[in-house]
């Protein structure tokens, strides 16, 4: 049974890591719904957030294969309930259209959109939220005409208590104890 998983891949900041991670998914014919890569809160540690749909068994297999990549520090696989996540979208629309009727009002009040730039020709609206909320706003604005639209990949924060820093310390410590399975996938 396929389910949505958010993979958080923490790695050293080396060239080629993204490629090494994605080929693991490609080999298994797992489609990437979204992907985001940036530096994490820990200096020198890179974070790749990938959203995939697959089975619970398969997600465990690919997590282990990702952790096998030498420069990968830790990989977490979370279901949507286990994380707080957001995506961001930007819409460029004609100012003339936006000023007609109650469109701007609806964007701001009902959809929680934010105007980030307003010029006589166009407005740029920012919307942060889950994919379905963004799609809802997209459908609304489509009716009135969109000049440009872009949506980001997912970013996510886990609900679990144990933080990455703790894992890193454990890895770094002389005893180098292995983290029991139960705490990895919970």
């Amino acid at each position, binding site marked *: 049974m396929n389910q949505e998983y958010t993979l958080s891949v923490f*790695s*050293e*900041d*080396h*060239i*080629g*890591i*993204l*490629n*090494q991670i994605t*080929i693991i998914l490609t*080999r298994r014919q797992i489609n990437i719904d979204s992907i985001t*890569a940036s530096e994490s809160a820990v200096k*020198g540690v*890179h974070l790749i957030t990938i959203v995939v749909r697959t089975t619970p*068994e398969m997600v*465990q*297999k690919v997590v*282990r*294969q990702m*952790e*096998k990549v*030498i*420069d*990968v*520090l830790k990989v977490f696989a979370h279901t949507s309930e286990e994380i707080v996540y957001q995506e961001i979208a930007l819409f460029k629309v004609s100012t003339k259209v936006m000023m007609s009727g109650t469109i701007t009002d609806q964007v701001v009040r009902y959809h929680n959109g934010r105007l980030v730039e307003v010029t006589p020709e166009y407005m740029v609206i920012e919307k942060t939220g889950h994919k379905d909320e963004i799609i809802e706003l997209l459908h609304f604005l489509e009716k009135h005409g969109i000049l440009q639209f872009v949506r980001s990949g997912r970013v996510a924060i886990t609900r679990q208590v144990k933080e990455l820093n703790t894992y*890193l310390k454990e*890895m*770094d410590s002389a*005893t*180098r*104890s*292995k983290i*029991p399975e139960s705490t990895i996938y919970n």
Partner: protein
Amino acid sequence: MKENNNKNHNGNGQGEISGAEAVINILIAEGVDTIFGYPGGAIMPIYDNLMNVEDKITHVLTRHEQGAAHAAQGYAMVTGKPGVCLATSGPGATNLVTGIANAYLDSVPVVFITAQVVSTLIGTDAFQETDIIGVSMPVTKWNCQVKSADEIPEALSKAFYIATTGRPGPVLIDITKDAQIQKLNFIYSKCDYIRSYNPHIPLHMKEIESAAILINHASRPMIIAGHGVLISHAEEELLKFAEKTGIPVALTLLGLSAFPSSHRLYAGYLGMHGNYAPNVLTNQADLLIAIGMRFDDRVTGNLKKYAPDASVIHIDIDAAEINKNVRVDVAINNDAKEALYNLIPLVNQNSYEKWIREFRIYDKTEFDTVIKKDIKPESGEIKMGEVVKMISDLTKGDAVIVTDVGQNQMVTARYYRFSEPNTLVTSGGLGTMGFGLPASVGARLGSHKKNVITFLGDGGFQMTIQELGTIMQYNIGVKIVILNNSYLGMVRQWQDMFFSKRYASTEMVNPDFVAIAAAYRIPAKKVSERADLESSIKEMLATDGPYLLEVTVEKETNVMPMVQPGASVSEIKLTH
């Protein structure tokens, strides 16, 4: 992403020695005394420096980079030391790829050093430029490009550490030509720590205890041991564990030689062309103890019908192998030696005479229906099996055996009686035709045994036949046995069994192999009559230096038994 750990590599060309000299110094510091390779434009600075240390490092010039890769693997498999292989940029590097993939699938430590075009030309489609980092990424344990001389020590120290620790594997370091020429202040210390890589997994006694409970309560248990036993040098622990518990031991192809084949608890060789008893009885066992093996599809047959009644204990150092193909009840993610060492005190002294008698009954059936005809045929053409059996008897297991891939490999695995660890060099996971001859070059240079014997088919031999030149140049004393049936035998067997005997492109018109050997000044003989076989083998074994023995074998033989594709291991067929 930013470049290499935020370090500021100035690479300003100031310092004591060149990058190329640093590479050589590091090889010496890592205890490397034999390397295999092929020079070319971009790697010339390294080769130039190699000339200065001819007393310390023997470089073997193969006739093709693929040969160098396989030779380095053969060397690594018999010595337990990392193999080292050099190649130039572009085609030199891409010619290695089959050898790298082969080492990757069989977990063999080989450090590949390739040269790259000058750093300013990278990405411009320069002459002999390929993105070997991108190309080799899926088939290396780790790879790294070095663009300035001062990065060389760290990259190479990591390369040796990663290749040889944990589950071993090939690594590739790609060094630009300018980095080889630049100077650096050379300081070298061996790597023993990488934050993101922990090969020393602490043991969890809870899993060991759970395993012991399952073992102590089993009534039809079976040990299935693989290459991991040899890699972790756990042969003695395996022997002790088996003898204490009385549990029969079956081996995978790459596990052969990890347990003496003459031992009363030896249950045979597992897999598609393995022995009858361990394949059939896998599906009657109530407990499988898998040690250093990865449930390859050639071992498990149809997974849905694999070991339906068995609990499974899986000891493997690679966490990614646990639950990959077979769901396990107890996972011991650890080194085989350490796991067995801790497990032995917790298991009961036991014996399973009734269960072992079942193995012997199947053994007898296999002997009467298959083996007897294979090793003691009374008439007809020479059989592959009798050649292997005769060499096994005459060497008494005191030899290193190398094989190519196909029928020659399966027959050798079935009929050579291994008695010492690390005496088989073969291509398991990738099944690389052309592996045997170059791998035997490395095995010969790495082994102290009097005899290193390589069994090849006429097809595989001709894939890397040019390595006869290497054997000639360095007088490498390998005994080459060509089992010549003028067919790509294993493919022909499948055509026979599954494609209505339509032999599409499998028949070979072969040259005069004895004449070819003569051209390379290698003593050679062709045998077609059974009466001449023994004396010819004895002559080969008594010869110092290389020798080629071509044996004309029965043209159309099928290697049996066989677990047919899609079938369960218990549906293994004895006859076709």
